[in-house]
């Protein structure tokens, strides 16, 4: 009895061992880390499993970590000791800091060839943002994402802000926008405009957009914070946001989820938020639980020029401590990246604008709504400053929640806030 059990167990484990070893070719396991946990994360997981089905010789093992500081801290510490992933998602705004930390490996022309890609395949702005100062590529851009203006048509019906087709129109200045918010408030919108007023990202993106629309510079190329009249422009941006607060047009201390809920539950007429919430809206509309007609457009020209904050998700290969990555494995990783780029139409479903032009220019993408409507923003977008202290999970983001958000809520004057922000960022530069 005992003997039979043991024999059976041995046979089973033997066959299991053989089963693992059967593929004659060397199977590559690619460890993948990303920070995509929202509606876009679901789509990314679908892409990964589709890749795995199509490639028996390469298996991607994906792990989703927490967005922001936790992700980038983990990447840095694990890469330094050689325990990092084989490929990871990376914000291009974070690239300067990544380079100074030395966690990124250069993407060579041979690598690109293995992926079936070329530098010219990408939007120039995104490709440029993926390069180091010497022109070496350190990441492969995957998308361009930005904030857009979502609107709820039910609050604007009958006003001059909807055209015959029911599309948003007539917003060409802050004055127009404020009038539209007031109209929405008169039509019963509880908080006419929603964005994450109590979170770093929400505040930063709106602030940076308003600053960029005035032609202001947050950090100049030689590292000066708010040079010249940019200081006054920054103050004006904060003043504008403060006015929206004191008028009761935007929510008080709204955290990210709450700010989205205000719009999806029909309490807000406008939402300034990332394109990544497009799938949320689409899913709700498809399920029939939204209860109103919605649209999304590029952030209108509120100040002097039309531009919007933008950032890119990209793929990067971290260093592995002191070791070099096995060339076969690196080839496999580049295969994954190339495949993802060519299938990024599925990623566009998540709201993002593909950085890979053959997909962005495709007929299929042109049909996608509202994506195609706001895709023009890619040409006029303003990326984050190229500096160690800027980008996702950087001191600039910290200053937004630590200084700008309290200023909007009346704890500091806009002048004081900008002065504090300036001195704080200066002290973080070294």
């Amino acid at each position, binding site marked *: 009895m005992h003997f039979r059990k043991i024999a059976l167990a041995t046979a089973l484990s033997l066959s299991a061992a053989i089963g693992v070893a059967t593929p004659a070719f060397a199977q590559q396991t690619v460890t993948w880390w990303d920070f995509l946990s929202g509606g876009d994360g679901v789509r990314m997981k679908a892409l990964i499993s589709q890749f795995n089905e199509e490639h028996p010789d390469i298996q991607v093992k994906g792990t989703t970590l927490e967005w922001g500081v936790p992700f980038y*801290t983990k990447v840095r510490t694990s890469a330094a000791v050689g325990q990092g992933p084989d490929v990871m998602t990376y914000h291009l705004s974070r690239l300067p800091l990544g380079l100074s930390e030395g966690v990124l490996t250069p993407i060579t022309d041979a690598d690109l060839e293995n992926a079936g890609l070329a530098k010219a395949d990408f939007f120039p702005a995104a490709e440029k943002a993926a390069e180091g100062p010497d022109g070496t590529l350190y990441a492969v851009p995957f998308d361009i994402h930005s904030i857009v203006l979502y609107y709820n048509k039910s609050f604007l019906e009958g006003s001059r802000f909807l055209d015959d087709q029911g599309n948003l129109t007539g917003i060409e200045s802050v004055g127009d926008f404020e009038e539209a918010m007031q109209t929405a408030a008169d039509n019963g919108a509880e908080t006419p405009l929603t964005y994450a007023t109590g979170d770093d990202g929400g505040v930063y993106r709106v602030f940076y957009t308003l600053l960029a629309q005035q032609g202001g510079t947050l950090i100049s190329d030689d590292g000066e914070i708010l040079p010249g009249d940019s200081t006054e422009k920054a103050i004006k941006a904060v003043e504008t946001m403060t006015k929206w607060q004191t008028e009761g047009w935007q929510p008080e201390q709204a955290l990210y989820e709450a700010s989205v809920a205000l719009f999806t539950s029909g309490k807000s007429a406008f939402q300034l938020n990332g394109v990544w919430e497009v799938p949320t809206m689409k899913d709700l509309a498809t399920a029939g639980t939204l209860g109103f007609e919605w649209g999304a457009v590029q952030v209108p020209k509120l100040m002097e020029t039309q531009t919007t904050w933008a950032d890119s998700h990209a793929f990067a290969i971290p260093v592995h401590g002191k070791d070099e990555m096995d060339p076969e494995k690196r080839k496999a990783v580049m295969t994954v990246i190339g495949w993802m780029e060519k299938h990024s139409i599925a990623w566009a479903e998540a709201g993002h604008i593909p950085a890979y032009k053959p997909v962005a220019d495709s007929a299929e993408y042109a049909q996608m709504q509202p994506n195609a409507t706001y895709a023009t923003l890619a040409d006029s977008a303003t990326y984050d400053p190229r500096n160690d202290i800027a980008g996702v999970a950087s001191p600039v983001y910290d200053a937004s929640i630590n200084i700008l*958000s*309290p200023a909007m809520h009346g704890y500091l004057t806009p002048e004081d806030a900008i002065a504090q922000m300036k001195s704080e960022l200066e002290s973080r530069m070294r």
Partner: protein
Amino acid sequence: MAIIRNKRRHGLVALSLILPFLAIFALVFAYPLYEVVRLSFTDAPLIGEGNWIGLDNYVRLFSDRIFYISIKNNAYFVVLTVIPTTLIAMVIALAVNRLSGRWQALALVLFFTPYVLPVSVVTQIWAWMLDFQFGVLQPVFTFFTGKPVPVFKNPYWVLPSIAVVTIWWTNGFNVLLILAGLRNIPTDLYEAAALDGATRRQLFARITWPLLWPVTALVLTLQLILQLKLFDQVYLLSEGGPFNTSYVLLLMVYREAFQLNHGGYAAAISLILFLLIAVVSVLQYQLLRIGRGKDT
């Protein structure tokens, strides 16, 4: 001769007995401490070696505005927690001490339960209770101030709120310590005093308070060290904001080391914090002992 050899053997035996401790102490305390000191004189990143830059980190630290803000906030937090939590623990311990049997055990469990919770759970509970939009405690704020208060986003409320959370969380342990101290006071002292006609107030002032003092001094010192090391609650509840009104030294260490990759500078800050805690706690303990000496 035999005695000398014996002495030497005694020495060897003694050495071999303390060697495990010495080895572990050297490995997990002395060596890291030496490394922190060494790092603080370099411009090392978080991982890897840096260049020797002498006192530059310290020069920079002592002209860093955030450093002084952090020290001030650390001091304010100590004021908000150390003595209040000790007094509250004493009141609770005195009350619990009057209970007996099962009731005492039940009361102890109730007061000790929060201490068992991990900090992330504690901060989640309080973040929700005090949530600006949905918090169950917001009606209380509305009653007193007329409107809801986003406590962790308000410069005046943020540190007091974190202090309340901290006291709620850690008080159970202090109650246990003080209760142990109370049980150590011989009951015949109270009986004798009662026979002599001492009032309740006299019993407390003449017997309980002085005999409890060693434990009280210990609680105060432990609390001082613990509260100077404030980090988790701030990181989880307010991230140092709004505009640095809850920025503390350990948060500064974290930001410099893990966010900005300044390992050397972070080492300098943590060394200063270490010295600060060592000096302040030794001073406090000595002062408390002197104070006690005068009393008795």
